[in-house]
């Protein structure tokens, strides 16, 4: 699977001449190295763009202590896939023409990309995307989570996402009264 590509490539391309590199090396919290296209990283992540522009990219692996290797692998994988997908150009141009761009539906490959993730991996990826300022990846992952919530009752949502109900029975009843209109059946 393509998932493993990031790692393998990382090992090989690290040996490429330091000067004039068109990739950057990122290091996860557990010390694994990943290679990602400089152009894609700068385009998709405001934080990485800032680091590249500010020269704070370490050729031996820029430390991203907040991101585990699995999440970082997914980030790198997303960047590579995004760079290869043709409609990405359309995506960029359309976001320019509608400057208050509303959320744009995930494309087919983005949907597949998040669909194959486990719960753990999905939430780790949301965190990583949020940390790295990757707006599109954040949108796509949040969209996936909202899809998982859509049409579910609060009880079902607590169960799916392991949210602890910290209300008393009375409080809960009061809230339901307060928000009664939203609990009406259609």
């Amino acid at each position: 699977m393509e998932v493993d590509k990031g790692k393998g490539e990382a090992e090989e391309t690290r040996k490429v001449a330091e000067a004039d590199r068109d990739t950057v090396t990122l290091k996860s919290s557990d010390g694994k190295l990943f290679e990602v296209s400089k152009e894609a990283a700068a385009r998709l992540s405001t934080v990485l763009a800032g680091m590249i522009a500010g020269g704070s990219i370490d050729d031996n692996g820029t430390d991203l202590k907040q991101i585990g290797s699995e999440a970082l692998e997914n980030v790198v994988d997303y960047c590579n896939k995004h760079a290869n997908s043709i409609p990405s150009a359309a995506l960029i141009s359309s976001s320019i023409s509608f400057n208050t761009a509303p959320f744009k539906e995930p494309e087919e490959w983005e949907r597949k990309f998040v669909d194959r993730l486990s719960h753990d991996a999905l939430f780790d990826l949301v965190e990583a995307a949020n940390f790295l300022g990757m707006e599109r990846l954040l949108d796509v992952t949040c969209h996936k989570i909202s899809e998982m919530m859509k049409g579910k009752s609060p009880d079902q949502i607590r169960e799916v996402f392991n949210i602890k109900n910290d209300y008393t029975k009375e409080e809960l009843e009061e809230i339901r009264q307060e928000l009664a209109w939203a609990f009406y059946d259609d």
Partner: protein
Amino acid sequence: MAEEDEADHINKLPDDVLVGILSLLPYKNAVQTSSVSRRWEPLLAQLPSLMFSMSEMGTHSEPRVQSMERTLRRRCRRHDVAVQTLNLTFRKDDAMECRYAGEFIALANAQKLLVQVSCDRALTDAGDWSLELPPATTELLLLPHWYAVRQPRIHGASVDTLRSLTLDGLTVLGQEFLHTPMPSLEDLYIGNCTLPVSIEITSDAMPRLMHLDIVDVSVMTRGTTKAGISVLAGGELRTLRMSGRRCSSLEPPSDTEWFLLPASFSASFTSYSCFRLRAPRLRVFEWRCCYADEVHIESVGLLSDVAVEIATGRMPRTWQEESEFVSVEHRDKLMSDILLGLMPGLRPRSWQNRHVQRKLQRSKQGRKSCTWKTRTERRKPALRQL
């Protein structure tokens, strides 16, 4: 895996990400979801877009609307997070809902206001009403659900600063609405309305209008109504798009669509009595599947984009209407009236010829060469100048 670890998942996400997730849900669903735990409840007050449907599937109850009001009041306690969008649906023929609607609109003070108004379908006139715009509103979308719903008299703090207005829905559009002075209005979209009389859009009412879209606007079928459209714009109007989408398809509508066309109010195929245009700095002109007995284009600017699409043949109609045909002569007259209006110096020698394909080089400064094709044997000839 231990349950404690699993519980970590969604709770470790920061508030703004959770707000982002909630705002992707339908509002009602998001409101329900906010009751999952103490941490989630306050997030409700940060959602940018609110949607309240007072009458849903025939439900009608004041306690329900009051509960919406409480939700809205809670939302508005967070003054630091302005409401971006309020989408409100209510019934015009229900005094209770109308009363609350005004209050909701004022409370939310949304930047973008969507007002969806329905009424009993047996009604033919739901009466006058007015809409007070709150100070923050710059974008208004009026979406009437039935012909009996008139356009409101728009007033209030932000009429003078309103930038964008959409009137889209089944409604009978009178001239009065378009005479409302809206000095800052830049975008006007009129869709799906039906005209009992001619309308005019003028620079007196909308001096700063830049973009005008008139989409699927038909003429009432009652009696022998004849109605035209005049656009007498000031120097700001840049784009004008007229289109009748229903007729732009080569396929006839399905049986269901025939059935749904409300024949007494709206015609499926419309020919305006007259179309008049004055827009001295117009740059984009689009005319798709619209018909007019007469076209008078007095002035346009240096055009950068033109599309004209008209068809001949039998036109879609509702079952009460007589068949309408657009003859080759009618189409050619319309096409040449439009072209001559847009390019006053035009003198094509072989205008009437079949299979005409010409290239026209215009020497005037700034104008590029343009190409047009007319193929009279085709049902839908098209002209484009890019």
